[in-house]
């Protein structure tokens, strides 16, 4: 038997998913263990082994690889529990990390936060002034050395940092991405003075123009590298002692994995690790269900994340936002668009608002009875009958209807002259409509039309809302993953991932591009990648390469990542770049928007290599119904559509469902991990893997009229 495993280490739970080469799949769960996440991971694997019915040592000795997503690097950066490092930069530019291009004050803030101008602040500089040294050296835009590196001075200041007790040193010099010699010399000098010192060079970690982001990326990667190593080394040892001899992989923000042994050398790429498992799951399930275009919506108790899969691949941005910093690392474009089921409903000078404040997991919604008194989306769902107080999370958490009603009536209903149900219905409709606004912005902002997509809804809170916001978006269909993957969707995605490595270089130049230069850039990148891939020490089923170049109209400050053709780079390949850029541009901004007279420039080149792992998890098929008829467990009154008010809905339990079962709204399906609301006009069908698929009665330009939660007249 051969197994592949995926482990998703979240803040609260660690989920494990495993499958064997005979098409069986299993999942298990254990509490996360912050401080020492490895323990929770081993616990979840022990649980998984129990589910399979074999000792963990047997399971691990027959496991080909384990891919895991971890909060380790992200937590380190967010909590500031990072290595104390020194920072070396070009003379005259040490203040770059204090000035932060003036954008540090507002980057990553919400519109509400930006609006309150006097209350905005910059984050503390990443490295304190006392551990920053300027080097005597200068290179210009063409890579020419204007001032040669003063090695004696460098030696002196490096020794100062060593004496100050730094654990690692980050080096980011101007124009190092064009000419890395000075940085390489600095690395040699540090190696001579402190052979064990971890060194991060900007020319290796982020060879991209714009010194501020490059320095931030270099510094952060250097800060987390020692912590990541300190986490991975003992984990590897523990797994080995339990009999594991396969590859331990770590998910990166880009949506592909890297081996644990190589991860610390590019620590920054793992920052988004924990955010990408869900998207990886959408990619894989989408491939299985023949859905190349997916809008991923992951609504939990405290966050609402959305991302896109287009043509079978996740949409990846060349940068990611981390607090008030923009970091240069390819990152699956996951956008936080809300605060999940805990979003608070409140009156803003008489106007009803939902979020952005959240009751979070603690004290949580009023109906949790754990001290929260403010009404949340979850409270509204309970009052509307969409949730059953006794069946929340499969009955694991008792909800209190009276507390939910009281909170809604006091904070919303009373002041607006509504009863608790009407208040709840308004909160529900507003939450759904705003979700649609925000998801639409993500989809349209990426240059796509929501009508070409299928919505995947997962996370505990999503499926109660998905029929409504999906209808508003005008998508064709909604998939609620409810088969084997239901409770461990992200872990499933991790188990099913590929190894993906990226490399980039900046060589700003104006069009027409020199064919030899473009070919040379990609040749160099692909050589680097081939080298890195072989270091992963895995036999891949297949290896594929993808290329892109960032292009812009001259003097624009934003570039568009533009695909470059595969194979030999010739006149034709290069000529196609301009056309491809302009086609994308027109799709994003409209046909009249392009303006070729401004001229084109290429800024950065990027290549990705994907190594397909030899084993793909297969999902077991759900049985079809033998004879007995599909029957609801009960009926209750629910309020799903404002226009229709209370309706009698059939209540099903997921455990009673078989493949090909069909359920017409109004209905509610309760599963152990979530609850699905199926309003009138929506048809739910169980597919052969046990997922629930929702389709709309009226297909066409907009489903909104069917499910409009709104009255169009006055009251």
């Amino acid at each position: 038997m051969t197994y592949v495993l995926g482990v998703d280490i979240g803040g609260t739970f660690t989920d494990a998913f495993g499958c064997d080469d005979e098409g069986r799949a299993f999942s298990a769960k254990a509490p996360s263990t912050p401080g020492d996440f490895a323990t929770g991971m081993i616990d979840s694997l022990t649980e998984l082994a129990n589910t399979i019915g074999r000792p963990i040592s047997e399971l691990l000795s027959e496991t080909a690889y384990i891919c895991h997503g971890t909060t380790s690097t992200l937590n380190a950066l967010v909590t500031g529990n990072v290595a104390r490092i020194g920072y070396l930069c070009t003379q005259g530019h040490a203040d770059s990390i204090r000035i932060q291009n003036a954008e540090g004050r507002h980057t990553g803030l919400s519109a509400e936060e930006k609006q309150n101008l006097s209350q905005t602040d910059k984050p503390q500089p990443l490295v304190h002034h006392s551990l920053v040294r300027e080097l005597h050296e200068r290179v210009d835009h063409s890579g020419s050395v204007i001032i040669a590196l003063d090695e004696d001075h460098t030696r002196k200041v490096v020794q100062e940092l060593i004496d100050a007790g730094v654990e690692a040193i980050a080096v980011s010099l101007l124009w190092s991405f064009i000419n890395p010699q000075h940085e390489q010399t600095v690395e040699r000098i540090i190696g001579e003075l402190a052979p064990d010192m971890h060194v991060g060079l900007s020319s290796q970690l982020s060879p991209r123009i714009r010194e501020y982001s490059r320095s931030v990326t270099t510094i952060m990667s250097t800060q987390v590298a020692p912590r990541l190593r300190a986490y991975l080394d003992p984990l590897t040892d523990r797994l080995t002692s339990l009999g594991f001899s396969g590859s331990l992989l770590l998910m990166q923000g880009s949506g592909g994995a890297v081996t644990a042994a190589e991860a610390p050398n590019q620590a920054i790429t793992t920052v988004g690790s924990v955010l990408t498992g869900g998207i990886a799951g959408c990619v894989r399930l989408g491939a299985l269900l023949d859905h190349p275009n997916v809008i991923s919506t992951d609504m939990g108790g405290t966050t609402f994340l959305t991302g896109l899969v287009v043509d079978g691949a996740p949409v990846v941005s060349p940068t990611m936002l981390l607090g008030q910093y923009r970091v240069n690392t390819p990152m699956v474009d996951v956008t936080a668009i809300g605060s999940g089921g805990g979003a608070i409903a409140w009156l803003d000078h008489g106007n009803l608002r939902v979020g952005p404040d959240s009751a979070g997991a603690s004290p949580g919604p009023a109906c949790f009875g754990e001290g929260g008194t403010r009404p949340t989306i979850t409270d509204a769902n309970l009052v509307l009958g969409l949730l059953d107080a006794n069946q929340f999370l499969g009955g694991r958490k008792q909800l209190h209807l009276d507390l939910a009603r009281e909170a809604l009536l006091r904070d919303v209903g009373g002041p607006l002259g509504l009863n608790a149900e009407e208040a709840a219905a308004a909160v529900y409709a507003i939450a759904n409509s705003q979700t649609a606004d925000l998801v639409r912005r993500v989809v349209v902002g990426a240059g796509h039309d929501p009508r070409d997509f299928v919505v995947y809804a997962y996370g505990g809170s999503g499926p109660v809302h998905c029929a409504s916001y999906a209808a508003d978006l005008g998508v064709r269909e909604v998939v609620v993953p409810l088969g084997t993957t239901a409770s461990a969707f992200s872990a499933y995605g991790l188990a099913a991932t590929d190894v993906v490595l990226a490399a980039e270089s900046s060589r700003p130049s104006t069009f027409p591009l020199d064919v030899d230069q473009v070919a040379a850039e990609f040749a160099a990148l692909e050589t680097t990648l081939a080298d890195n891939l072989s270091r992963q020490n895995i036999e891949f089923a297949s290896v594929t390469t993808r290329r892109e170049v960032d292009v812009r109209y001259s003097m624009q400050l934003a570039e568009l990542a533009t695909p470059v053709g595969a194979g030999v780079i010739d006149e034709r390949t290069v000529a196609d770049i301009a056309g491809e850029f302009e086609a994308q541009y027109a799709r994003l901004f409209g046909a009249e928007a392009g303006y070729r007279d401004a001229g084109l420039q290429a800024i950065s080149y990027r290549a990705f290599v994907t190594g397909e792992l030899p084993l793909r998890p297969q999902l077991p098929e759900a049985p079809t119904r033998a004879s007995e008829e599909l029957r609801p467990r009960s009926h209750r009154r629910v309020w799903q559509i404002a226009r229709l008010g209370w309706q009698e809905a059939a209540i099903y339990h997921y455990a009673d469902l078989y493949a090909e079962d069909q359920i017409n709204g109004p209905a509610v399906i309760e599963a152990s991990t979530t609850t699905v609301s199926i309003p009138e006009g929506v048809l739910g069908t169980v597919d052969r893997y046990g997922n629930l698929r929702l389709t709309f009665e009226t297909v066409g330009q907009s489903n909104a009229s069917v499910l409009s939660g709104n009255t169009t007249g006055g009251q």
Partner: protein
Amino acid sequence: MAVFHVQGSEKFASGSEDRGVDPERLDPRLRLHHPDDALSVDALTYEIVRHRLAAITEEMGAAIKRMSGSVVVTDAVDFGVCITDEVGDAVQVGMYNAQLCATMDMAVRWTLQNRSDNPGIQAGDMFLCNDPWVGGGVHQNDVSLFAPLFVGDELFAWTCAVAHQIDLGGVSPGSWSVHSKDVFWESLPIPPLKIVSGGVVLADVEDSYLRRSRMPALVGLDLRAKIGANNVAQQQLTRLVERYGADVVKTVMRRIMDDAEGRLRQRLTELPDGEWSSVAYQDQARVGDRGLYKIALSMTKHGDRITFDFTGTDEQVEGLINCTFAGLRGGVVTGILTLICGRIPWAPGGLMRCVEIISEPGTINNCTFPSGISKASVASAWATGNAVHECLANMLDAEETSTPEFMSVCKGTFGLSLLAGVDQRSNPFVTMLSDCMAGGFGARPDRDGVDTAGESPNLGGRIADVEMNEFAYPVLYLWRREEPDSGGPGRFRGGLGGSSCLIPHDTAARAIHLVSCSSGKALPQAAGLSGGYPGSASYEVIVRDSDIRNQLRESGMPIALVDIGGSAEIVPPALETVLDWDDVYYFEWQGGGGYGDPLRRDPSLVARDLTDAKIGEVAAHDIYGVVVSDDDTGFLIDAAATVTRREELRQVRVSESEVRP
């Protein structure tokens, strides 16, 4: 002073604060949409539509930023977007340049009054305007593009986008003509002009617009960006109206403005009544001038109303620093939005109902045609904003609250450093450096101001990386850094400004044309509050015939101007010159004002500022009165000596003050 009168120019003066559109002056064929006044909208629908309107302005802003080719738009965020109702009252403005938001309604109203019969206002039209007497911008570089949205045959609303264009002609590159005596030395204003008709860009009109620019490709790209932003908004608004009906959407728009008005009135009622005054100065109206010009403001708050009286402001002047009423209003709106409306919706159409403005035409912040106004946005309009900021902050400071939310005056202008010449690829270039946008913010009553923070009329904005400037233009930076002591001293310190220093590099011309234009050099502009000192003045130096080329070759990068030989030439507020091969250009921008008496600053914060190089030892000793000793571990405070030193400084103050009878 010597500005002459041009007959017929009154037609273009939107001037006063009059509201609404005179139906007599509308072509009867143009029907305006009016919702049923009796219609009320439930809380649910209101919130859904409100949220979507806000989302639409964000989409407009995102579109314009992505499509523009100009750093002034993409990075300096010198642009604005808004949605107005059928008569131009602004319902929702984007969180970009607040100054520009304040002028769109004026342009729309003027267009309704003057264009409805000829050439007519129809669906699919877009109007271009850069006439600050009409509105839609503060100086000629602000080019607005606004489009009527029709529902059926009724004019329902307008969508608007405005952005600063890098060059629109005039005698100096960049169109800020430092020699300007009147508007005829500058880029000539274009009153509302139909440039898109029935969805099609009119080629003849576009050509005649772009023909005036030294950088037509770049300006052309920006025009497309504004068209794109309007397209985005029109599509989304149309969807919204199809879904909810025109009456519902319009009723929500009205209620958004009423809501903003009501909340501002409530906030004003909470604040103490009183009268506050301030004076904002500017130095030098044009090259060669030695004058100092004042904007005088007396602000009265009574109950839920606030009056800004600019009586006593200097007369308009021969030069480029005047602004029209649009600029004055921009300064007022900026202050109201950024200081009082941190938590109140930005719907100027409602907010401005609480505000009265008293100003006399013919003054430097309400000038008449054909006064020079090419620098208006950062000159009289910004200075108006500084005066407004100071009065509002003083009013907020008078409120008894445990959670004060305001700051002292921020960096008080934008200093133009415009470079033109031949780039490293032998192409011509014109650019404005954005470095000085990283100005200091004012100190707050509970903490320091933000260092190198940005600028207060602009919510976003970033400066370009040194590498991006060196890639695009033929310059080499010697440094870019925070300037110690540039933040106004106080119990809480104003945020620091910074400086950049650069030389021509890799240009076949071996020289660069420079237009420098920054006020606030003769005296500071970022006032302190409650005894806090002002932030630093702007300061620029050109070192002529320096030894820099030799030094770079032989001894490395200098760290101070005194190390590079040559002769230092202090740059006046307005100068057009050439940077030669051996010249070095240094420009330093302002910090923010301080809050409270610096003698009351916690000495440990002073020591921290010394360690972090935010202040120097002279300031610590002479302004903060903190005595420190310096050893390997850092700065140690001598507590006893500090008490003595502070007492000494208080005695000096007493001896220097005079009691007037």
